[in-house]
């Protein structure tokens, strides 16, 4: 059997879903090996949110007005903080090269990595946010819209953030550069996420904001992995 016969699956593009599955399973197992890190991300979210009442005072009406914005900005920062983890470790130990040279399509593999990043950083925020919302005196209805908004918004944050993380692989400029690149792109997600809770508070339905967040997510799901793949290949060149 010459090596030529045993080449990898003939139609690599057919392997897209296996690629997603491979990356998701591998990154989740990696993340679960260092559970403490997930805890740190979550604690960062809690701390940032809890700092605001110290800054603006405990006055309930004010906290209610600030609540959604604070919870969403803190979610942005928590997501931003954990982005380098997607590529940096793999870049330094050489696995990113092997991933880029795999027959599976690179955007699929990267989607799996981003999904794993969301499950370990975005989802815990969604679960934690109603609890923190109570600190800000948000009503039950507002808390549920906050959680739903984060559920739809945080994957978009991971997807857009992954582009920035891929562009800054191996650069010594550090987190500041990543924040500068990505936070402007986060603005629409923040606007509609926090806007959804405000709409509900004012008695309107938040379906408009949530559907726009959903649309943003779909666009990001299609576009971000492709941009990330290009950025990873550029970084490996």
């Amino acid at each position: 059997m010459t090596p030529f016969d045993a080449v990898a699956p003939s139609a690599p593009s057919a392997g897209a879903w296996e690629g997603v599955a491979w990356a998701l399973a591998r990154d989740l197992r990696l993340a679960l090996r260092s559970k403490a890190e997930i805890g740190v991300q979550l604690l960062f979210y809690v701390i940032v949110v809890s700092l605001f009442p110290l800054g603006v005072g405990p006055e309930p009406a004010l906290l209610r007005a600030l609540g959604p914005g604070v919870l969403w900005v803190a979610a942005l920062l928590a997501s931003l903080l954990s982005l380098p983890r997607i590529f940096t470790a793999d870049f330094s130990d050489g696995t990113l090269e092997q991933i880029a040279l795999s027959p599976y399509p690179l955007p699929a593999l990267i989607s799996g990595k981003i999904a794993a990043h969301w499950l370990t950083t975005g989802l815990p925020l969604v679960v934690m946010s109603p609890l923190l919302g109570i600190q800000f005196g948000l009503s039950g209805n507002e808390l549920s819209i906050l959680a739903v908004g984060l559920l739809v918004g945080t994957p978009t944050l991971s997807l857009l953030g992954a582009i920035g993380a891929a562009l800054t692989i191996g650069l010594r400029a550090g987190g500041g550069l990543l924040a500068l690149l990505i936070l402007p792109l986060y603005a629409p997600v923040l606007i509609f996420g926090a806007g959804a809770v405000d709409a509900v508070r004012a008695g309107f339905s938040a379906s408009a904001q949530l559907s726009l967040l959903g649309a943003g997510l779909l666009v990001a799901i299609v576009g971000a992995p492709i941009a990330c793949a290009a950025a990873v290949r550029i970084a490996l060149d």
Partner: protein
Amino acid sequence: MRFAATLFANVDFSLGNGEMLVVTGANGSGKTTLLRIASGLSHAAHGALKWRGIAVAPFDAELRASVLYIGHATALKDEFTAEENLLALSSLHGAPGGERAAVREALGAWSLDRQSRLPARVLSQGQRRRIALARLNLIRRPLWVLDEPASAIDAADVAQLERLIASHLSTGGIAVIATHHDLAIHGARKRMLRLS
């Protein structure tokens, strides 16, 4: 080119089935860059990379399905055990089977049975190199691109490496190897390329 400095120019070679190119040269002469270009990771400033006669861009799907690149980095995750690392890498490259049995057998071939359950971070650099080389037993690819494969491993393992490369070439495989050791590969059509 690296940082806009030309490392080497008008290098031209083509390899057929069963042929091996050994690239030598001082450190910094561009051996790694040449190998990365050959494996489709990097761009060449000028000139083209052809696979099976067709010019291919970096990360070309056809080339990715045919190349096995082992660079300086061992591509091991510290949190994973030796076995898990190899399982992940072989399934990443869609190696047929890729189950634990083939992985254990490969680790055995490189006398790493006892270390197979240990997380990679506790292993020595030599052991990690051998795990990286164990991929040669697992992943079937026509084109091998190996960057200093014989570094940090002892004589017995170099012999194992030479046997693997010889059998790869005998079944019609191609190899591009950068190395300082003169690998004794008998009966293979060996070509030398020295980068000054």
